[in-house]
């Protein structure tokens, strides 16, 4: 059972570089989320999607873009990385009828130098 899979697991970027983080889920979930996790701050929502082709801003969307072209995939893009984006990024998904139970990927650890 794959569940939620995030790639890559680790990445080091230089300031100004771009990259895309991929989240894939095989549970046919409608809702998907991108979070960042920083020490002492819990999880903060970056963007989320309520279905294929739809996205919305979360609490900390600046500097990130997302796309949900296929139901199973949710991409997070950094167009011009900054050191403040050094963090651990988590993807999660859920579906209607599960309340708010979210299922998480293993995370992507990103360092921006």
């Amino acid at each position, binding site marked *: 059972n794959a569940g*939620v899979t995030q790639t890559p697991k680790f990445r080091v970027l230089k300031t100004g570089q771009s990259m895309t983080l991929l989240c894939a889920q095989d549970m046919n979930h409608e*809702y998907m*989320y991108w979070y960042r996790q920083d020490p*002492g*701050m*819990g*999880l*903060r*929502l970056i963007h*989320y999607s*309520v279905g294929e082709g739809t996205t*919305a801003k*979360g609490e900390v969307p600046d500097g990130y873009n997302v796309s949900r072209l296929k139901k199973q995939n949710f991409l997070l893009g950094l167009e011009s990385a900054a050191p403040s984006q050094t963090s651990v990024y*988590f993807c*999660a998904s*859920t579906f*209607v009828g599960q*309340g*708010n*139970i*979210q*299922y*998480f*990927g*293993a*995370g992507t650890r990103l360092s921006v130098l």
Partner: protein
Amino acid sequence: AQSVTQPDIHITVSEGASLELRCNYSYGATPYLFWYVQSPGQGLQLLLKYFSGDTLVQGIKGFEAEFKRSQSSFNLRKPSVHWSDAAEYFCAVGALDSNYQLIWGAGTKLIIKP
């Protein structure tokens, strides 16, 4: 605004001792309540949840939590901790009208003394 407070950043407990992690929330109605656990370098795993009904809920790994509406609390407990319980624990609140979003506490790191 909805919020979740976990007052303890770190808690140190001896192996075999009991554990209680605190969680307080602010929300206008009865929310959905969750505890998740994150082992080092891992993603988050659901420990238990409260939607409605019995206010004492049982979860995996021997954990339980009690919803107290009057205190706006959802504290996590375990009668006897094991070294493998060392992890970070997150409390979260959700609501029906929130696009299934969760509001997260800052987490409590549990350290187990041998």
